[in-house]
């Protein structure tokens, strides 16, 4: 339990520092959320998905731990 919590903080820190693996891991974690929000009336909007991916990258960068 404890290790899970600190694990995320570490992951985030690494991702903020440019660690590709950490970034990919976070992406894997949040991909379902991005896909769900990229749906437009049961159709997948590719462009919107790209925008939201950019939003995720931006959030990783700006989030204050």
């Amino acid at each position, binding site marked *: 339990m404890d290790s899970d*919590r600190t694990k995320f903080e570490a992951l*985030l820190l690494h991702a903020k520092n440019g660690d590709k693996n950490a970034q990919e891991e976070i992406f894997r974690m*949040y991909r379902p*959320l991005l896909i769900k*929000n990229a749906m437009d009336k049961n159709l997948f909007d590719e462009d*919107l998905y790209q925008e939201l991916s950019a*939003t995720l990258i931006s959030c990783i960068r700006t989030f204050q731990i």
Partner: protein
Amino acid sequence: MKEQYNDSIQNRFTAYLVAAVVHRRIRYMEQKRKRIDHERILMDLLEKNYLDFDTQFHAYVSERENAVVRDWVQFREILDLLGSRKLVRAVERLKEREKTLLFARVFGELSFTELAEMLDINPKQAEMAYYYVVRKLRKELEVWMRHGQ
């Protein structure tokens, strides 16, 4: 303390991300809707080909129909007045040419162009002459109305 702090980091991050994502999605959808609306307007304009004879012809015919309706309204006004002898007398007092103009236009339903051909003048003169007669009649009827039967 520290555990709670760590516990909330992922929750905080998730909340932060969800807010940003939902926001971005809303903006995107608004832009998308505007884009689709503009495209629809553009397609509409493209379809309206102003070189299309059919469209132009139908527009022309509709316009002519409207013109006839307008004249009918005036005709009915005259018909109503015909019930009164005042109008008949006023018409009788018109000059021959004025009578011709009136009857040709009202009963013959001639266009100003046709009227002009008939009288050997130009269409605009025909139009002006016709409305002069109408105004003249109106004025006479007003005078009658002011002086009673």
